[in-house]
Protein backbone atom coordinates (compact mmCIF):
# COMPACT_ATOMS: atom_id res chain seq x y z
CA UNK A 1 0.00 0.00 0.00
CA UNK A 2 2.91 2.34 0.79
CA UNK A 3 4.41 1.61 -2.62
CA UNK A 4 1.10 2.24 -4.36
CA UNK A 5 0.66 5.53 -2.49
CA UNK A 6 4.17 6.52 -3.55
CA UNK A 7 3.42 5.75 -7.22
CA UNK A 8 0.27 7.92 -7.12
CA UNK A 9 2.30 10.65 -5.44
CA UNK A 10 4.80 10.51 -8.32
CA UNK A 11 2.03 11.23 -10.82
CA UNK A 12 0.79 14.17 -8.72
CA UNK A 13 4.33 15.60 -8.55
CA UNK A 14 4.66 15.16 -12.31
CA UNK A 15 1.34 17.00 -12.75
CA UNK A 16 2.66 19.95 -10.73
CA UNK A 17 5.97 20.03 -12.58
CA UNK A 18 4.17 19.86 -15.92
CA UNK A 19 2.54 23.17 -15.09
CA UNK A 20 5.55 24.81 -13.52
CA UNK A 21 8.58 23.43 -15.33
CA UNK A 22 7.21 22.06 -18.59
CA UNK A 23 5.28 24.99 -19.92
CA UNK A 24 1.69 24.28 -18.86
CA UNK A 25 0.63 22.52 -22.03
CA UNK A 26 -2.89 22.05 -20.60
CA UNK A 27 -2.19 18.36 -20.00
CA UNK A 28 -1.94 18.31 -16.18
CA UNK A 29 -5.54 17.19 -16.31
CA UNK A 30 -7.52 14.11 -15.19
CA UNK A 31 -7.66 12.75 -18.74
CA UNK A 32 -3.86 12.40 -18.86
CA UNK A 33 -2.93 11.94 -15.17
CA UNK A 34 -5.52 9.22 -14.37
CA UNK A 35 -4.32 6.89 -17.16
CA UNK A 36 -0.78 7.37 -15.76
CA UNK A 37 -2.03 6.43 -12.29
CA UNK A 38 -3.79 3.45 -13.83
CA UNK A 39 -0.66 2.39 -15.68
CA UNK A 40 1.48 2.48 -12.52
CA UNK A 41 -1.15 0.68 -10.42
CA UNK A 42 -1.73 -2.00 -13.04
CA UNK A 43 -5.22 -1.05 -14.28
CA UNK A 44 -4.66 1.25 -17.24
CA UNK A 45 -8.17 0.78 -18.63
CA UNK A 46 -9.88 1.90 -15.43
CA UNK A 47 -7.52 4.89 -15.29
CA UNK A 48 -8.62 5.94 -18.80
CA UNK A 49 -12.30 5.64 -17.85
CA UNK A 50 -11.99 7.58 -14.58
CA UNK A 51 -9.81 10.19 -16.30
CA UNK A 52 -12.32 10.75 -19.08
CA UNK A 53 -15.23 10.94 -16.63
CA UNK A 54 -13.50 13.43 -14.32
CA UNK A 55 -12.38 15.51 -17.31
CA UNK A 56 -16.02 15.86 -18.32
CA UNK A 57 -16.99 17.12 -14.86
CA UNK A 58 -14.02 19.46 -14.54
CA UNK A 59 -13.94 20.56 -18.18
CA UNK A 60 -14.61 24.11 -17.09
CA UNK A 61 -12.21 24.24 -14.18
CA UNK A 62 -9.14 26.05 -15.39
CA UNK A 63 -5.89 26.27 -13.55
CA UNK A 64 -5.21 30.01 -13.58
CA UNK A 65 -4.76 32.09 -10.48
CA UNK A 66 -7.20 31.25 -7.69
CA UNK A 67 -8.92 28.03 -8.70
CA UNK A 68 -12.18 26.62 -7.37
CA UNK A 69 -10.83 23.07 -7.52
CA UNK A 70 -7.35 21.56 -7.57
CA UNK A 71 -7.73 19.02 -10.35
CA UNK A 72 -4.25 17.44 -10.13
CA UNK A 73 -4.68 16.35 -6.49
CA UNK A 74 -8.37 15.55 -6.86
CA UNK A 75 -7.90 13.31 -9.87
CA UNK A 76 -4.75 11.46 -8.74
CA UNK A 77 -6.05 10.73 -5.23
CA UNK A 78 -9.50 9.67 -6.44
CA UNK A 79 -8.16 7.52 -9.26
CA UNK A 80 -5.53 5.93 -7.01
CA UNK A 81 -8.03 5.07 -4.28
CA UNK A 82 -10.57 3.80 -6.81
CA UNK A 83 -8.10 1.42 -8.44
CA UNK A 84 -6.54 0.19 -5.17
CA UNK A 85 -9.95 -0.44 -3.60
CA UNK A 86 -11.83 -1.50 -6.71
CA UNK A 87 -14.36 1.36 -6.52
CA UNK A 88 -16.80 2.34 -9.26
CA UNK A 89 -16.37 5.43 -11.44
CA UNK A 90 -19.23 7.19 -9.63
CA UNK A 91 -17.53 6.50 -6.28
CA UNK A 92 -14.24 7.83 -7.66
CA UNK A 93 -16.03 11.04 -8.63
CA UNK A 94 -17.55 11.28 -5.16
CA UNK A 95 -14.02 11.19 -3.69
CA UNK A 96 -12.51 13.54 -6.25
CA UNK A 97 -14.81 16.46 -5.59
CA UNK A 98 -14.10 17.06 -1.86
CA UNK A 99 -10.39 16.22 -2.29
CA UNK A 100 -10.09 18.75 -5.11
CA UNK A 101 -11.73 21.41 -2.96
CA UNK A 102 -9.56 20.73 0.10
CA UNK A 103 -6.35 20.73 -1.93
CA UNK A 104 -6.80 24.37 -2.94
CA UNK A 105 -5.67 25.20 0.63
CA UNK A 106 -2.18 23.86 -0.18
CA UNK A 107 -2.00 26.30 -3.07
CA UNK A 108 -2.72 29.14 -0.65
CA UNK A 109 0.12 28.03 1.63
CA UNK A 110 2.52 27.85 -1.30
CA UNK A 111 1.53 31.28 -2.57
CA UNK A 112 2.35 32.65 0.87
CA UNK A 113 5.78 31.02 0.81
CA UNK A 114 6.50 32.41 -2.63
CA UNK A 115 5.63 35.98 -1.78
CA UNK A 116 7.35 36.03 1.62
CA UNK A 117 10.48 33.99 0.83
CA UNK A 118 11.30 33.54 -2.86
CA UNK A 119 10.20 36.91 -4.18
CA UNK A 120 12.27 39.05 -1.72
CA UNK A 121 15.26 36.74 -2.33
CA UNK A 122 14.93 37.39 -6.06
CA UNK A 123 14.93 41.15 -5.42
CA UNK A 124 18.22 40.90 -3.49
CA UNK A 125 19.73 38.62 -6.16
CA UNK A 126 18.83 41.12 -8.89
CA UNK A 127 20.38 43.98 -6.85
CA UNK A 128 23.76 42.25 -6.85
CA UNK A 129 23.51 40.59 -10.26
CA UNK A 130 23.53 37.05 -8.88
CA UNK A 131 22.48 35.12 -12.00
CA UNK A 132 23.00 31.68 -10.44
CA UNK A 133 20.58 32.47 -7.64
CA UNK A 134 17.97 33.69 -10.12
CA UNK A 135 18.42 30.43 -12.04
CA UNK A 136 17.23 28.30 -9.12
CA UNK A 137 14.81 30.84 -7.67
CA UNK A 138 12.93 30.76 -10.95
CA UNK A 139 12.29 27.08 -10.28
CA UNK A 140 11.82 27.19 -6.51
CA UNK A 141 8.12 28.06 -6.23
CA UNK A 142 7.05 25.09 -8.26
CA UNK A 143 9.47 22.80 -6.39
CA UNK A 144 7.99 23.61 -2.97
CA UNK A 145 4.52 23.30 -4.46
CA UNK A 146 5.25 19.86 -5.97
CA UNK A 147 6.75 18.72 -2.67
CA UNK A 148 3.75 19.83 -0.62
CA UNK A 149 1.15 18.43 -3.00
CA UNK A 150 3.15 15.21 -3.36
CA UNK A 151 3.26 14.71 0.41
CA UNK A 152 -0.47 15.41 0.72
CA UNK A 153 -1.30 12.93 -2.04
CA UNK A 154 0.95 10.27 -0.49
CA UNK A 155 -0.71 10.67 2.92
CA UNK A 156 -4.22 10.79 1.47
CA UNK A 157 -3.76 7.61 -0.57
CA UNK A 158 -1.93 5.60 2.12
CA UNK A 159 -4.38 6.60 4.87
CA UNK A 160 -7.41 6.66 2.61
CA UNK A 161 -7.11 3.20 1.10
CA UNK A 162 -7.62 1.64 4.54
CA UNK A 163 -10.61 3.82 5.38
CA UNK A 164 -12.34 4.52 2.11
CA UNK A 165 -14.18 1.20 1.76
CA UNK A 166 -15.64 1.47 5.24
CA UNK A 167 -16.70 5.07 4.64
CA UNK A 168 -18.34 4.30 1.31
CA UNK A 169 -20.11 1.22 2.65
CA UNK A 170 -21.50 3.24 5.53
CA UNK A 171 -23.32 5.48 3.03
CA UNK A 172 -26.88 4.16 2.43
CA UNK A 173 -27.53 2.71 -1.03
CA UNK A 174 -30.17 5.33 -1.90
CA UNK A 175 -27.68 8.15 -1.19
CA UNK A 176 -25.07 6.40 -3.30
CA UNK A 177 -27.60 6.18 -6.14
CA UNK A 178 -28.27 9.87 -5.57
CA UNK A 179 -24.58 10.70 -5.84
CA UNK A 180 -24.37 8.64 -9.00
CA UNK A 181 -27.31 10.57 -10.49
CA UNK A 182 -25.73 13.82 -9.33
CA UNK A 183 -22.52 12.94 -11.17
CA UNK A 184 -24.59 12.72 -14.37
CA UNK A 185 -25.76 16.34 -14.03
CA UNK A 186 -22.51 17.76 -12.60
CA UNK A 187 -20.86 18.30 -16.02
CA UNK A 188 -23.33 21.19 -16.38
CA UNK A 189 -21.03 23.10 -14.01
CA UNK A 190 -18.14 22.67 -16.44
CA UNK A 191 -20.32 23.89 -19.30
CA UNK A 192 -21.38 26.92 -17.26
CA UNK A 193 -17.78 27.88 -16.47
CA UNK A 194 -16.75 27.52 -20.12
CA UNK A 195 -19.69 29.68 -21.18
CA UNK A 196 -18.38 32.42 -18.89
CA UNK A 197 -15.22 32.50 -21.00
CA UNK A 198 -16.74 32.50 -24.45
CA UNK A 199 -20.46 33.21 -24.28
CA UNK A 200 -21.45 36.31 -26.16
CA UNK A 201 -25.11 36.95 -26.85
CA UNK A 202 -24.38 37.97 -30.44
CA UNK A 203 -23.00 34.47 -31.06
CA UNK A 204 -25.94 32.64 -29.47
CA UNK A 205 -26.87 31.19 -32.87
CA UNK A 206 -23.57 29.32 -33.03
CA UNK A 207 -24.22 27.95 -29.55
CA UNK A 208 -27.65 26.71 -30.64
CA UNK A 209 -26.15 25.20 -33.80
CA UNK A 210 -23.62 23.28 -31.73
CA UNK A 211 -26.37 22.03 -29.44
CA UNK A 212 -28.66 20.91 -32.27
CA UNK A 213 -26.09 18.95 -34.29
CA UNK A 214 -25.67 16.08 -31.78
CA UNK A 215 -29.27 16.35 -30.56
CA UNK A 216 -30.96 15.79 -33.91
CA UNK A 217 -28.24 14.70 -36.33
CA UNK A 218 -26.20 12.36 -34.11
CA UNK A 219 -22.99 14.34 -34.62
CA UNK A 220 -20.09 12.99 -32.53
CA UNK A 221 -17.64 15.28 -30.76
CA UNK A 222 -15.11 15.32 -33.63
CA UNK A 223 -17.85 16.18 -36.13
CA UNK A 224 -19.11 19.03 -33.92
CA UNK A 225 -15.59 20.45 -33.64
CA UNK A 226 -15.17 20.32 -37.42
CA UNK A 227 -18.54 22.04 -37.92
CA UNK A 228 -17.26 24.67 -35.47
CA UNK A 229 -14.14 25.18 -37.58
CA UNK A 230 -16.41 25.65 -40.61
CA UNK A 231 -18.50 28.24 -38.76
CA UNK A 232 -15.39 30.09 -37.57
CA UNK A 233 -13.98 30.22 -41.12
CA UNK A 234 -17.26 31.55 -42.51
CA UNK A 235 -17.28 34.23 -39.82
CA UNK A 236 -13.65 35.20 -40.35
CA UNK A 237 -13.80 35.54 -44.14
CA UNK A 238 -17.24 37.11 -44.48
CA UNK A 239 -16.94 39.71 -41.75
CA UNK A 240 -15.34 42.95 -42.95
CA UNK A 241 -12.44 44.28 -40.87
CA UNK A 242 -13.30 47.05 -38.46
CA UNK A 243 -10.34 49.37 -38.68
CA UNK A 244 -9.46 51.10 -35.39
CA UNK A 245 -9.63 54.85 -35.44
CA UNK A 246 -6.48 56.58 -34.37
Amino acid at each position, binding site marked *: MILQAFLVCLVAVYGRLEQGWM*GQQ*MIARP*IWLCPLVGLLLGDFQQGVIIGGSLELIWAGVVQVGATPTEVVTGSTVACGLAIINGLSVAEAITIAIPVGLLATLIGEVNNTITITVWSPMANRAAEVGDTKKIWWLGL*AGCATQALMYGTAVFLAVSAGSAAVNAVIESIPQIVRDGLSNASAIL*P*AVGIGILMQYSFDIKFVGFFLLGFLLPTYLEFGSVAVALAGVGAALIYFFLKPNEVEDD
Partner: protein
Amino acid sequence: MGVSLTKKELNSVYWRHYQALGCYSYDKQQGIPYLRAMLPALQKLYPEQDKLIEAMKRHNTMFNTTCAFVPFCLGISCAMEEEYANDESGQFNPDSIGAVKIALMGPLAGIGDSFFWGTFRLIACGVGAPLAAEGNVLGVILYLLLNLIPSTLTRWYGFKLGYNGGRQFLARIQADGTLAKLTDAAKVLAMVVIGGMIPQIVRFPLSLTWEMGGGTFVLADVLNGIMPNLLPLLLSLFVYKLLMKGTKVNYIIFGLLGFGIVMTLIGIM
Protein backbone atom coordinates in the same frame (compact mmCIF):
# COMPACT_ATOMS: atom_id res chain seq x y z
CA MET B 1 27.46 46.79 -34.58
CA GLY B 2 28.73 45.76 -31.18
CA VAL B 3 27.32 42.73 -29.45
CA SER B 4 24.56 40.72 -31.02
CA LEU B 5 22.64 37.68 -29.88
CA THR B 6 23.46 34.38 -31.55
CA LYS B 7 21.38 31.28 -32.01
CA LYS B 8 22.95 29.89 -28.85
CA GLU B 9 21.60 32.55 -26.46
CA LEU B 10 18.26 32.77 -28.25
CA ASN B 11 17.78 29.02 -27.98
CA SER B 12 18.51 29.03 -24.25
CA VAL B 13 16.04 31.88 -23.72
CA TYR B 14 13.46 29.92 -25.70
CA TRP B 15 13.93 26.70 -23.74
CA ARG B 16 13.81 28.54 -20.43
CA HIS B 17 10.33 29.85 -21.25
CA TYR B 18 8.99 26.38 -20.41
CA GLN B 19 9.58 27.19 -16.74
CA ALA B 20 7.45 30.35 -16.95
CA LEU B 21 5.31 29.14 -14.06
CA GLY B 22 8.29 27.83 -12.10
CA CYS B 23 7.91 30.45 -9.37
CA TYR B 24 4.48 32.02 -9.59
CA SER B 25 4.04 34.69 -6.93
CA TYR B 26 1.20 37.10 -6.23
CA ASP B 27 3.42 40.15 -6.51
CA LYS B 28 5.35 39.33 -9.70
CA GLN B 29 3.35 36.41 -11.11
CA GLN B 30 5.64 35.08 -13.89
CA GLY B 31 8.18 37.84 -13.24
CA ILE B 32 11.01 35.82 -11.66
CA PRO B 33 10.90 33.04 -14.30
CA TYR B 34 10.78 35.73 -17.00
CA LEU B 35 13.99 37.25 -15.65
CA ARG B 36 15.47 33.75 -15.43
CA ALA B 37 14.65 33.14 -19.09
CA MET B 38 16.16 36.48 -20.17
CA LEU B 39 19.48 35.83 -18.38
CA PRO B 40 21.37 34.09 -21.24
CA ALA B 41 20.62 37.08 -23.49
CA LEU B 42 21.35 39.70 -20.81
CA GLN B 43 24.68 38.11 -19.82
CA LYS B 44 25.79 38.12 -23.45
CA LEU B 45 24.67 41.70 -24.12
CA TYR B 46 25.97 43.24 -20.88
CA PRO B 47 29.39 41.87 -19.94
CA GLU B 48 29.85 44.75 -17.45
CA GLN B 49 28.34 43.91 -14.04
CA ASP B 50 26.61 47.28 -13.46
CA LYS B 51 24.85 47.17 -16.83
CA LEU B 52 23.81 43.58 -16.15
CA ILE B 53 22.34 44.48 -12.74
CA GLU B 54 20.42 47.35 -14.30
CA ALA B 55 18.97 44.95 -16.90
CA MET B 56 18.16 42.29 -14.30
CA LYS B 57 16.23 44.81 -12.20
CA ARG B 58 14.41 45.88 -15.34
CA HIS B 59 13.01 42.38 -15.81
CA ASN B 60 12.48 41.52 -12.12
CA THR B 61 8.98 42.96 -12.35
CA MET B 62 5.39 41.84 -12.58
CA PHE B 63 4.59 39.93 -15.74
CA ASN B 64 1.82 37.49 -16.61
CA THR B 65 0.33 36.10 -19.78
CA THR B 66 -0.78 32.79 -21.24
CA CYS B 67 2.19 30.42 -21.18
CA ALA B 68 2.08 29.77 -24.93
CA PHE B 69 2.59 33.49 -25.62
CA VAL B 70 5.52 33.94 -23.25
CA PRO B 71 8.04 33.10 -26.04
CA PHE B 72 6.56 35.85 -28.23
CA CYS B 73 7.14 38.40 -25.44
CA LEU B 74 10.62 37.03 -24.71
CA GLY B 75 11.48 37.36 -28.41
CA ILE B 76 10.44 41.01 -28.38
CA SER B 77 12.36 41.68 -25.14
CA CYS B 78 15.49 40.08 -26.64
CA ALA B 79 15.24 42.23 -29.77
CA MET B 80 14.75 45.39 -27.68
CA GLU B 81 17.58 44.60 -25.25
CA GLU B 82 19.85 43.98 -28.22
CA GLU B 83 18.85 47.31 -29.71
CA TYR B 84 19.51 49.08 -26.40
CA ALA B 85 22.87 47.40 -25.83
CA ASN B 86 24.04 48.60 -29.25
CA ASP B 87 22.54 52.06 -29.02
CA GLU B 88 25.34 54.59 -29.08
CA SER B 89 23.23 57.66 -29.74
CA GLY B 90 21.52 57.52 -26.34
CA GLN B 91 18.16 57.78 -28.12
CA PHE B 92 16.82 54.43 -26.89
CA ASN B 93 14.97 54.70 -23.58
CA PRO B 94 15.29 51.38 -21.70
CA ASP B 95 11.98 52.05 -19.93
CA SER B 96 10.26 51.21 -23.20
CA ILE B 97 11.38 47.56 -22.81
CA GLY B 98 9.27 47.17 -19.69
CA ALA B 99 6.49 49.32 -21.10
CA VAL B 100 6.12 47.05 -24.14
CA LYS B 101 5.96 43.97 -21.88
CA ILE B 102 3.21 45.55 -19.80
CA ALA B 103 1.33 46.68 -22.89
CA LEU B 104 1.51 43.21 -24.45
CA MET B 105 0.64 40.96 -21.56
CA GLY B 106 -2.99 42.03 -21.16
CA PRO B 107 -4.21 41.61 -24.74
CA LEU B 108 -2.07 38.48 -25.23
CA ALA B 109 -3.50 36.89 -22.08
CA GLY B 110 -6.97 37.70 -23.36
CA ILE B 111 -6.39 36.06 -26.74
CA GLY B 112 -4.28 33.27 -25.25
CA ASP B 113 -6.77 32.26 -22.59
CA SER B 114 -9.63 32.21 -25.07
CA PHE B 115 -7.54 30.22 -27.59
CA PHE B 116 -5.73 27.78 -25.33
CA TRP B 117 -7.99 27.37 -22.31
CA GLY B 118 -11.22 28.21 -24.07
CA THR B 119 -10.77 26.72 -27.55
CA PHE B 120 -8.00 24.17 -28.12
CA ARG B 121 -8.27 22.56 -24.67
CA LEU B 122 -12.03 22.64 -24.95
CA ILE B 123 -12.07 20.97 -28.36
CA ALA B 124 -9.52 18.45 -27.11
CA CYS B 125 -11.75 17.77 -24.12
CA GLY B 126 -14.92 17.63 -26.20
CA VAL B 127 -13.30 15.15 -28.57
CA GLY B 128 -11.17 13.14 -26.15
CA ALA B 129 -13.06 12.95 -22.85
CA PRO B 130 -16.23 11.18 -24.07
CA LEU B 131 -14.05 8.57 -25.80
CA ALA B 132 -11.86 8.11 -22.73
CA ALA B 133 -14.90 7.85 -20.45
CA GLU B 134 -15.92 4.82 -22.50
CA GLY B 135 -12.48 3.34 -21.95
CA ASN B 136 -11.04 4.19 -25.37
CA VAL B 137 -7.36 5.12 -25.13
CA LEU B 138 -7.64 7.02 -28.42
CA GLY B 139 -9.46 9.70 -26.41
CA VAL B 140 -6.35 10.29 -24.31
CA ILE B 141 -4.07 10.40 -27.37
CA LEU B 142 -6.34 12.82 -29.22
CA TYR B 143 -6.54 15.03 -26.13
CA LEU B 144 -2.75 15.23 -25.94
CA LEU B 145 -2.22 15.89 -29.66
CA LEU B 146 -4.94 18.52 -29.93
CA ASN B 147 -3.32 20.46 -27.08
CA LEU B 148 0.35 19.92 -27.79
CA ILE B 149 0.42 20.65 -31.53
CA PRO B 150 -1.12 24.16 -31.55
CA SER B 151 0.68 25.09 -28.35
CA THR B 152 4.12 23.95 -29.58
CA LEU B 153 3.73 25.72 -32.93
CA THR B 154 2.60 28.94 -31.23
CA ARG B 155 5.57 28.87 -28.87
CA TRP B 156 8.22 28.18 -31.49
CA TYR B 157 6.98 30.50 -34.25
CA GLY B 158 5.86 33.07 -31.69
CA PHE B 159 9.42 33.36 -30.41
CA LYS B 160 10.83 33.78 -33.92
CA LEU B 161 8.16 36.29 -34.84
CA GLY B 162 8.65 38.19 -31.58
CA TYR B 163 12.38 38.52 -32.16
CA ASN B 164 11.96 39.46 -35.82
CA GLY B 165 9.72 42.51 -35.65
CA GLY B 166 6.89 41.09 -33.57
CA ARG B 167 5.95 44.46 -32.15
CA GLN B 168 5.26 45.92 -35.59
CA PHE B 169 3.35 42.80 -36.65
CA LEU B 170 1.09 42.91 -33.60
CA ALA B 171 0.48 46.64 -34.00
CA ARG B 172 -0.46 46.07 -37.64
CA ILE B 173 -2.99 43.28 -37.09
CA GLN B 174 -4.41 45.18 -34.14
CA ALA B 175 -4.86 48.35 -36.17
CA ASP B 176 -6.43 46.72 -39.23
CA GLY B 177 -8.93 44.76 -37.12
CA THR B 178 -7.60 41.28 -37.92
CA LEU B 179 -6.79 40.56 -34.30
CA ALA B 180 -10.29 41.40 -33.07
CA LYS B 181 -11.78 39.28 -35.84
CA LEU B 182 -9.50 36.37 -35.03
CA THR B 183 -10.52 36.52 -31.36
CA ASP B 184 -14.18 36.55 -32.37
CA ALA B 185 -13.70 33.64 -34.78
CA ALA B 186 -12.17 31.65 -31.92
CA LYS B 187 -15.24 32.50 -29.85
CA VAL B 188 -17.53 31.26 -32.64
CA LEU B 189 -15.65 27.96 -32.67
CA ALA B 190 -15.79 27.69 -28.89
CA MET B 191 -19.53 28.44 -28.87
CA VAL B 192 -20.26 25.62 -31.35
CA VAL B 193 -18.11 23.20 -29.35
CA ILE B 194 -19.64 24.17 -25.98
CA GLY B 195 -23.17 23.92 -27.39
CA GLY B 196 -22.30 20.52 -28.80
CA MET B 197 -20.83 19.29 -25.53
CA ILE B 198 -24.12 19.64 -23.65
CA PRO B 199 -25.96 16.69 -25.26
CA GLN B 200 -22.80 14.62 -25.07
CA ILE B 201 -21.70 15.10 -21.48
CA VAL B 202 -24.64 16.35 -19.39
CA ARG B 203 -27.19 13.66 -18.65
CA PHE B 204 -30.41 14.02 -16.72
CA PRO B 205 -31.54 10.55 -15.70
CA LEU B 206 -35.27 10.56 -14.95
CA SER B 207 -37.01 7.49 -13.58
CA LEU B 208 -40.44 8.94 -12.80
CA THR B 209 -43.32 6.92 -14.29
CA TRP B 210 -46.90 6.40 -13.24
CA GLU B 211 -49.92 4.45 -14.43
CA MET B 212 -52.64 6.59 -15.91
CA GLY B 213 -55.85 5.23 -17.40
CA GLY B 214 -54.72 2.41 -19.61
CA GLY B 215 -51.18 3.62 -20.32
CA THR B 216 -47.95 4.38 -18.51
CA PHE B 217 -46.75 7.95 -18.24
CA VAL B 218 -42.98 8.19 -18.59
CA LEU B 219 -41.71 11.68 -17.75
CA ALA B 220 -38.47 11.22 -19.70
CA ASP B 221 -40.38 10.28 -22.89
CA VAL B 222 -42.68 13.28 -22.61
CA LEU B 223 -39.75 15.67 -22.28
CA ASN B 224 -37.90 13.94 -25.13
CA GLY B 225 -40.98 14.45 -27.27
CA ILE B 226 -40.72 18.22 -26.75
CA MET B 227 -37.00 18.29 -27.48
CA PRO B 228 -34.28 15.76 -26.68
CA ASN B 229 -31.69 17.02 -24.21
CA LEU B 230 -33.95 19.85 -23.13
CA LEU B 231 -33.17 19.45 -19.41
CA PRO B 232 -29.38 19.30 -19.86
CA LEU B 233 -29.62 22.50 -21.94
CA LEU B 234 -31.76 24.31 -19.38
CA LEU B 235 -29.59 23.14 -16.51
CA SER B 236 -26.40 24.35 -18.23
CA LEU B 237 -27.97 27.74 -18.93
CA PHE B 238 -29.13 27.93 -15.32
CA VAL B 239 -25.61 27.22 -14.01
CA TYR B 240 -24.22 29.86 -16.36
CA LYS B 241 -26.79 32.39 -15.05
CA LEU B 242 -25.82 31.59 -11.45
CA LEU B 243 -22.13 32.01 -12.25
CA MET B 244 -22.79 35.34 -13.95
CA LYS B 245 -24.63 36.46 -10.82
CA GLY B 246 -21.47 35.68 -8.88
CA THR B 247 -22.49 32.45 -7.15
CA LYS B 248 -19.41 30.50 -6.05
CA VAL B 249 -18.66 27.40 -8.14
CA ASN B 250 -18.35 25.23 -5.06
CA TYR B 251 -21.82 26.19 -3.85
CA ILE B 252 -23.21 25.15 -7.23
CA ILE B 253 -21.36 21.82 -7.11
CA PHE B 254 -22.68 21.04 -3.62
CA GLY B 255 -26.11 22.29 -4.61
CA LEU B 256 -26.23 19.86 -7.54
CA LEU B 257 -24.97 17.00 -5.37
CA GLY B 258 -27.78 17.70 -2.88
CA PHE B 259 -30.28 18.09 -5.71
CA GLY B 260 -29.30 14.70 -7.13
CA ILE B 261 -29.72 12.98 -3.77
CA VAL B 262 -33.08 14.63 -3.03
CA MET B 263 -34.44 13.87 -6.49
CA THR B 264 -33.39 10.23 -6.11
CA LEU B 265 -34.97 9.99 -2.65
CA ILE B 266 -38.33 11.25 -3.91
CA GLY B 267 -38.16 9.01 -6.95
CA ILE B 268 -37.90 11.55 -9.74
CA MET B 269 -34.36 10.57 -10.77
